[in-house]
């Protein structure tokens, strides 16, 4: 199918909007746009970070998911209490595949679920006593934890519990960091506010721990990797590149990260931000308070990796700049071989994305390295600044959809007929049943890492094995195939 023109894309949006009642139509129209690379600012063409419409199928999460699931959860040597009823934590447990090293249940706790398991009486009489008891139990059962965070679920804010007081009391008693996080699910319009609240909690309760303490020996090459959640090992594949070029990675936020690393981050020389959406707040804070500059980078696909390595190196002296060139050179044969192998099999294929955080724009380069084209992209919970950064990455007249509804997404796909869709688990089976190859791009479909040169090889292989899988030819029942309609010759 040839690329759609601007008019065709606009007509498609109008057609899809047709079914909504007037008010809903006006609202949704603001969230759907045809990309125009000449725009500097996205707010001219698309509205984002607004409340979803009642009655439509949104794909968003809640503030608790943003705080517990994304920002705090991967800090592996802390115990994160899902404070409230049991479901919020249990049904999201270990789903993000944030890899870590350690012995689970002894010195790391990433895949476990700790909850205060609220019952009716806790709602009626308050849960502070239970929380205090729970923290004491944790100290007895898991004495090697390095700290505790209290991740509020919806009821906590509704019944007015004072978790800050409990946190302060228990911090004194046990001599460990205890962080109350006010990330009740009803706050904000999506998980995005949860990220912000989580960042603020780190700022207020953790980051200052080593202010005025210079015992940690620093080097001029100290950096922190921020906003890499080590999904399928992403942060490891990134970290090796940075270390190879001569930098010292002091902290990983927060995939495979520890609270000690977070406390040491104010000592670094440069903060490297991968997921801008979920961690820009803390980077801005550190820039202001500790004068640590920050830059965004992109480790998907060789073109963007090389660009990012050079941009990072520009903040350091010649040894690092040479280091960056050396790293790019070293992996060259490897990634060229990957491209040589997979590009002929993927060339010209069209992709539609709908994910969160950074991926709707960051992975575009990796697809382009394989000769593929991203024809539609959208974010679950982006803000204006994310779309500002997306406009230039996407081709002209491609489709942008913010907080897309289940209905819109299906209709777009039916019309555009992409060769591959990258989105979440809730979308996966719908599109597979429509016969369209699908990759789950939140947890890399149980694969990964996708970051770094090593990750690119896996990315390319995964896209190939999904797209060129022979199963897609067998989606249609044999009796519904064209050939089957030929009259069968009756036996004489």
């Amino acid at each position: 199918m040839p690329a759609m023109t601007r008019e065709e894309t606009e007509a498609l949006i109008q057609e899809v909007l047709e079914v909504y009642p007037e008010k809903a139509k006006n609202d949704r129209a603001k969230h759907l746009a045809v990309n125009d690379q000449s725009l500097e600012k996205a707010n001219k063409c698309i509205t984002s970070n607004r409340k979803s419409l009642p009655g439509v199928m949104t794909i968003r999460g809640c503030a608790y998911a943003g705080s517990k699931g994304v920002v705090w959860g991967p800090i592996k040597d802390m115990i994160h209490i899902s404070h409230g009823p049991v479901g919020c934590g249990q049904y999201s447990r270990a789903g993000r595949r944030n890899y870590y090293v350690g012995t689970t249940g002894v010195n790391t706790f990433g895949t476990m679920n700790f909850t205060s398991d609220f019952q009716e009486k806790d709602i009626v009489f308050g849960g502070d006593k239970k929380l205090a008891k729970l923290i004491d139990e944790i100290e007895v059962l898991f004495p090697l934890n390095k700290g505790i965070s209290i991740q509020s679920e919806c009821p906590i804010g509704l019944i007015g519990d004072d978790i800050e007081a409990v946190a302060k009391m228990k911090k004194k008693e046990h001599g460990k960091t205890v962080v109350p996080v006010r990330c009740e699910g009803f706050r904000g319009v999506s998980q995005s506010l949860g990220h912000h609240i989580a960042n603020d909690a780190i700022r207020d309760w953790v980051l200052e721990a080593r202010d005025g303490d210079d015992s940690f020996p620093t080097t001029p090459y100290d950096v922190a990797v921020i906003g890499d959640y080590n999904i399928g090992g992403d942060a490891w594949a990134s970290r090796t590149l940075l270390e190879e070029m001569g930098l010292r990675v002091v902290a990983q936020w927060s995939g495979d990260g520890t609270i000690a690393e977070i406390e040491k981050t104010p000592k670094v020389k440069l903060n490297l931000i991968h997921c801008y959406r979920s961690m820009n707040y803390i980077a801005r804070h550190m820039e202001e308070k500790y004068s640590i500059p920050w830059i965004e980078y992109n480790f998907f696909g060789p073109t963007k990796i090389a660009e990012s390595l050079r941009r990072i190196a520009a903040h350091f002296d010649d040894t690092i700049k040479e280091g960056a060139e050396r790293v790019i050179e070293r992996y060259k044969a490897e990634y060229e071989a990957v491209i040589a192998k997979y590009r002929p099999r993927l060339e010209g294929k069209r992709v539609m994305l709908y994910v969160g955080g950074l991926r709707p724009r960051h992975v575009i380069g990796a697809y382009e390295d394989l000769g593929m084209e991203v024809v539609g992209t959208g974010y679950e919970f982006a803000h204006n600044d994310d779309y500002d950064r997306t406009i230039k990455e996407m081709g002209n007249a491609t489709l942008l959809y913010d907080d897309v509804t289940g209905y819109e997404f299906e209709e777009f796909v039916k019309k555009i007929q992409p060769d591959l869709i990258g989105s979440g688990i809730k979308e996966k089976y719908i599109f597979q049943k429509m016969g369209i190859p699908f990759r789950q791009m939140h947890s890399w479909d149980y694969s990964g890492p996708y970051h770094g040169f090593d990750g690119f090889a896996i990315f390319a292989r995964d896209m190939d094995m999904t797209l060129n899988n022979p199963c897609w030819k067998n989606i249609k029942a044999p009796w519904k195939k064209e050939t089957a309609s030929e009259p069968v010759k009756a036996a004489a």
Partner: protein
Amino acid sequence: MPSVMLRKRDDGKLLFYVAKKDLEETIESLEFDAPEKWGGEVVLGDGSRYYFEPLSPAPKIPTTLQAKRL
């Protein structure tokens, strides 16, 4: 009176960021921009105008300041 975070972009332009409003814009003009007097009326990239109480000496950037919307 929104709290505004000010930072320098790589190309030296000042960025005006209001987290609550999702607003990240470049500062196109600043009424007083000297070491001994800084602030006054600012015009942003999208044409909106704000006002900083003039400061002396000029603040160290990055910083957070209160601004009035004009």
